[in-house]
């Protein structure tokens, strides 16, 4: 007699198939990567002082890596950013961008006695690798120059050396990483625009995509701009949300399903939370965060599904004025990805003077007097078209470019004014280390 288990193998196989069909992926990488938290202890020591703005500025540059080059690459680009919390609490972060596997460091710096200390975490954006790092710039290794009141005239290679140790996960920092100042960052204007308001949920970031929190995180990842996905609720409130449905990819389970457009803002704000617990932000909350809380310079408002284009235009006007009033240079573009949104946009009386970003054909971009033409990267580097468009006064951004090899080549060809990416640290690295 055949044994019962063998007899039921086909059925077991079907059960297994049924169980996994539709499951897709995300079996293991379900949660956001946990960033090590025990970092501030190293900064809050007696006598620690915040760094002067000129010191921070002088730290920015391309560093050569001696110890640790096998893990973080031979060069690292360092850039400062800030984030404002609760309207008044400003924190400065020194971000380091590396070539391998979209690695970045987010550090905070203090002056302790005659040295400078940087402490923070590192992460690889393509996987879940994370760890901590601590650097010291001693008096003789450049702290004297950096902390001088007249800092800093042209630093020469080797003038500043960051001696550091890094560790994996929450483990002890025991691996050496030494950075030596090499040159200044590439000064060419270039926009590093972070997709989904800062980054994708699938990259396991600590904040959900299209949340106010990810907008505040974007500059630390190297972004100089963000792309919002705009939809409108049933009662017409413009919100930041990407997918055409409320789903578990973006939100926690709430029992509410179907298109976000079917729900009022009151319903969404009361009952729906993004995967990391944030509220779905309104467009105005997003723009407020950009202008008040970050140094971001570009906002690409991608019109996913808009019913009321005049309202979007009014909000755009309001926040351009708000940024100008604060002395901030923030370009806010209405993104036009489809014919439908293009028609809505062209129905605006002042569309020819409205800052817009056109993803459609070059002739359409010129017809509506768009300020930016944005082709998809899968068409290849638009060198020739970009030349024509730039000669006509338009900027050229490509979307959504994540492959490091392509990013490097697109930047090297110099035909673009910006790149929309899920990997801001990679674009930041290739842009900043490029020699002008």
């Amino acid at each position: 007699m055949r044994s019962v288990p063998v007899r039921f193998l086909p059925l077991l196989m079907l059960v297994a198939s049924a169980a996994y069909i539709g499951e897709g992926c995300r079996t293991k990488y379900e949660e956001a990567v946990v960033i090590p938290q025990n970092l501030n202890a190293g900064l809050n020591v007696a006598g620690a002082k915040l760094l002067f703005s000129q010191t921070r500025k002088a730290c920015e540059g391309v560093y050569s890596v001696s110890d640790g080059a096998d893990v973080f690459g031979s060069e690292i680009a360092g850039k400062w950013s800030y984030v404002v919390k609760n309207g008044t609490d400003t924190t400065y972060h020194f971000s380091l961008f590396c070539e391998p596997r979209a690695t970045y460091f987010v550090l905070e710096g203090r002056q302790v006695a005659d040295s400078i200390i940087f402490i923070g975490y590192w992460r690889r954006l393509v996987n879940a690798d994370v760890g901590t790092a601590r650097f010291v710039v001693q008096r003789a290794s450049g702290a004297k120059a950096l902390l001088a009141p007249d800092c800093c005239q042209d630093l020469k290679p080797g003038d500043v050396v960051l001696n550091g140790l890094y560790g994996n996960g929450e483990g002890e920092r025991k691996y050496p990483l030494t950075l030596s100042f090499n040159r200044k960052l590439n000064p060419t204007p270039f926009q590093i625009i972070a997709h989904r308001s800062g980054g994708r949920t699938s990259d396991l970031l600590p904040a959900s995509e299209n949340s106010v929190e990810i907008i505040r995180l974007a500059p630390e990842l190297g972004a100089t701009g963000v792309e919002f996905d705009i939809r409108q609720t049933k009662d017409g409130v413009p919100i930041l949300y990407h997918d055409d449905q409320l789903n578990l990819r973006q939100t926690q389970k709430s029992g509410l399903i179907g298109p976000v457009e079917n729900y009022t803002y009151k319903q969404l704000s009361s009952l729906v939370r993004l995967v990391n617990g944030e509220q779905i932000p309104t467009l105005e909350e997003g723009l407020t965060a950009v202008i008040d809380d970050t140094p971001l310079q570009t906002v690409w408002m991608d019109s996913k599904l808009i019913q009321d284009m005049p309202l979007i235009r009014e909000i755009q006007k309001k926040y351009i004025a708000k940024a100008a009033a604060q002395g901030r240079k923030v370009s806010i573009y209405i993104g036009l990805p489809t014919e439908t949104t293009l028609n809505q946009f062209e129905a605006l009386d002042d569309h020819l003077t409205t800052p817009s970003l056109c993803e459609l054909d070059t002739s359409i971009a010129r017809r509506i007097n768009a300020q930016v033409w944005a082709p998809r990267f899968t068409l290849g580097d638009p060198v020739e078209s970009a030349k024509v468009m730039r000669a006509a006064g338009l900027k050229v951004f490509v979307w959504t470019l994540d492959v490091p090899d392509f990013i490097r080549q697109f930047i090297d060809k110099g035909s673009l004014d910006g790149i929309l990416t899920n990997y801001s640290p990679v674009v930041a690295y290739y842009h900043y280390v490029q020699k002008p």
Partner: protein
Amino acid sequence: MSTWRVGLLACYLVTGLTINAVAQDIAPPKSTTAATPSRQQAIKNRARLRQRSGYKRLQSQAPTPRSPGFTKAGQLRRLSPDQLWDVQPDSTRPNRGPFRLLVYTGLGASYYSAPLNSPVALENKQQLRWSIPFSLRVMWQTDHRMRLGIETGYVSMYSYKGTRNGELANVRVSTTPILAVFSMSVVKRFALYAGTGPYRINSNLEYDGNTRGTTYSLGWMVAGTYTQPLGRNIGLAAELKWYDATQTKDACFIAQATLVWRALTW
């Protein structure tokens, strides 16, 4: 969701079931219409041969085209136990059937077993995970080991309510599965079922108006039944079932009484 996924799955199921349905409809060869012994007869023959053989393993040469399975006298050769094991009727035999159409209707209790955290913003929260599900299944009993069929029904999976700024919010979520089901009889009267397909998930929100939502979530199910015959064509089954809509991470456990009706035999 994916209209694509639902569409493709529907095409896949329709095509697959059509192939099977057409394929089964093969008329027996003319030469075999007469005097085909029943399966019981074949089993009896087998038992008789095994009993008569009286040895552990037959060492005689295996039948080959030059030495066929019959003796010169036209009798079937005695076969080894291994050969006997192999001579069971299977799907390749030309005389197919019988085929049956079985209809199952069930009613019982369900418990929503997936994690459920009602929104933090609500106060005085109350959750309900129990409900009374209804299911309807039609199975085609082939002469293969496996039966094929479809299942649908209705399960009110969960509901919760609470207040927000003094205003009551009430959310109800239910599902209607549309599943292709495979089944196999384990031992007499006991059968296992496994299926896959889309679950139509419905939600109803009463807060700041009334909003309904619908989506499709691909998933799977497993079930087991014990059937007690009540008559020639009717029986009552105790059924335990697990529904899992994976895309929306909804799952529920169901215990129900199922009426089994042998609707057609051919």
